[in-house]
């Protein structure tokens, strides 16, 4: 691994008396695309705002490219930010939106023209230079916002849920567009999102946050296959998580449901890991829905709520029927430390 480019050391962030992030340390490498993932209120946006300089840390330091920038104001930090709402300037044309930062830097008019046009072309907005933001579609506004930051060649690019206001198809297009831009420019990117699919698809490394601390950090594959905590497992799609204690499987109400031969700790199953049809457990089909490849079930059982799936070729179990199911240890993911 190359040395770290953005370095957050023991960062504590607060709004008034509310601590939003506590003692967070994170190293980001040059040219890396990192996603900060987590539910709302986990501190991911706050962390991003601190890197941008919009929020001063209560304690800790922020280094970018070897310099301590903790005290450097936001307008001198050389960090780009794409806002969730894009925050374009409505009174300026697309061209002038992109030129805004260059004009502040007293760049000559000729150079501004060249650089703005080039950067509008990069995001395929060349022909819309004279349009106002309100005359652009959501996806175009998004790309304009990106171009406005990229034209200044920031050391770090921060993106705050930039895809959440787009419709599903556009989101996929923009996702690959972002990846292409990041790979070709080699810019260091921090991408904030609450969408685990987006985080896993985009990132070199995913930082999962919860309640102001890092819950787990790793490559998308590591996080997807080996979540290290119950929260991480749940967030990443292990929908059935149960505790094993004293050789028994514990139901969601805390009572021992059934003897289970496994070491104490937690076991987690994705819906596909639950074998439906027969087995030592019984439950009632509470809901069934068609999801293309599979039927998805919600089953009520003494263990608690179980989600399971069966191949779409099979005839589905109707709602209300009692089915047997098994939770096989070899399909489960073990989580050691109980929280």
């Amino acid at each position, binding site marked *: 691994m190359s040395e770290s480019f953005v370095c957050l050391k023991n960062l504590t962030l607060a709004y008034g008396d509310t601590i939003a992030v506590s003692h967070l340390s994170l190293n980001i490498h040059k040219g890396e695309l990192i996603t900060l993932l987590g539910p709302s209120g986990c501190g991911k946006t706050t962390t991003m705002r601190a890197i941008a300089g*919009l929020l001063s840390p209560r304690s800790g330091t922020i280094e970018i490219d070897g310099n301590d920038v903790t005290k450097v104001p*936001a*307008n001198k*930090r050389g960090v780009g930010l794409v806002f969730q709402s894009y*925050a*374009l*300037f409505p009174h300026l044309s697309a061209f002038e939106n992109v030129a805004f930062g260059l004009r502040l830097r007293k760049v000559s008019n000729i150079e501004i023209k060249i650089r703005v046009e080039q950067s509008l072309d990069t995001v395929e907005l060349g022909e819309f230079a004279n349009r106002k933001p309100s005359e652009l579609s959501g996806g175009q506004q998004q790309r304009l916002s990106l171009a406005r*930051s990229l034209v*200044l060649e920031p050391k770090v690019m921060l993106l705050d849920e930039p895809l959440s206001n787009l419709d599903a198809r556009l989101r996929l297009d923009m996702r690959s567009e972002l990846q292409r831009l990041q790979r070709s420019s080699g810019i260091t990117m921090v991408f904030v999102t609450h969408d685990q699919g987006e985080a896993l698809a985009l990132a070199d490394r995913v930082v999962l946050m919860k309640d102001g601390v890092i819950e787990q950090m790793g490559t998308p594959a590591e996080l997807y296959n080996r979540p290290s905590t119950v929260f991480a497992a749940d967030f990443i799609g292990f929908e059935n998580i149960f505790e094993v204690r004293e050789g028994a499987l514990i139901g969601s109400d805390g009572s021992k449901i059934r003897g289970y031969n496994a070491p104490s700790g937690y076991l987690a199953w994705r819906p596909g890991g639950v074998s439906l049809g027969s087995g030592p457990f019984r439950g009632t089909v509470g809901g069934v829905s068609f999801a293309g490849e599979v039927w998805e079930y919600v089953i009520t059982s003494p263990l608690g709520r179980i989600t399971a799936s069966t191949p779409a070729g099979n005839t589905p179990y109707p709602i209300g029927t009692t089915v047997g199911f098994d939770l096989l240890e070899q399909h489960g993911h073990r989580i050691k430390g109980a929280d």
Partner: protein
Amino acid sequence: MGKWTSFLVIGLTLTFLIGPFFIIITAGLSAGENLAFPPEGLSLKWYLAVFKVESFRESFALSMFLAVFGTLTALVLGVPAAYALSRYRLPLAETVKTIVAAPIIVPGIIVGLGLLRYLVIPLDFTVSLALFMAHTALVIPYAVRVVAASLENLRSDMEEAAILLGCTRLGAFIKVVLPNIRGGVLAAFILGFVTSFNQVPVSLFLSGPGVRTLPIDMLAYMEITYDPSVAALSALLAIMSVGIIFLAEKFLGFSRYV
């Protein structure tokens, strides 16, 4: 029959609202020497006579000065206040809003008497200064409210975006906030101008010998001379107000802000 009833109601309402205006305009067109309706003959002489009255010219200039500079001063004070109230969570924000709105709610007579008794007399202000301060104070509520309304529609992350692109906080306000609330500021100016220009009760208390605003001067003139020139002047002023509002509506969509 419902249709005719509504025509009748609308007709009566319009008569009630526009009737006096019509009477004033025609009374000013009189060829006679006394203020009367219907006018005694028709002529434009009173409309022309208005411009020859020295005190009207002086008080018009004073009213104009107060309306323009009082409103500008109110905006210089009111725009930052509106900005602070809409952008920051201030501990006494509600109290400040109430106090700022007070000159709208409290009757002008009380404001005028209060200013006179507790500010102008004890501090020995000149009449012009007292009038200027009073007109500024009276317009501030409009400045704050109208500008605040257009700030509400402006997302604050736009300023943060400007800062991250290299602006200072003040630079972001000037380059990004102001251009986007320009309509609101202009609307506040027009509203403030009209309010100040037509203000009577406060000016009545604060006017002094030789220093009067136009409405007060017209009152004083009528006590001595009962000729149609006051009607002619009123008509001219009404037309001016209507013209300003009409232009504002046409170019600004004024009614969006007020």
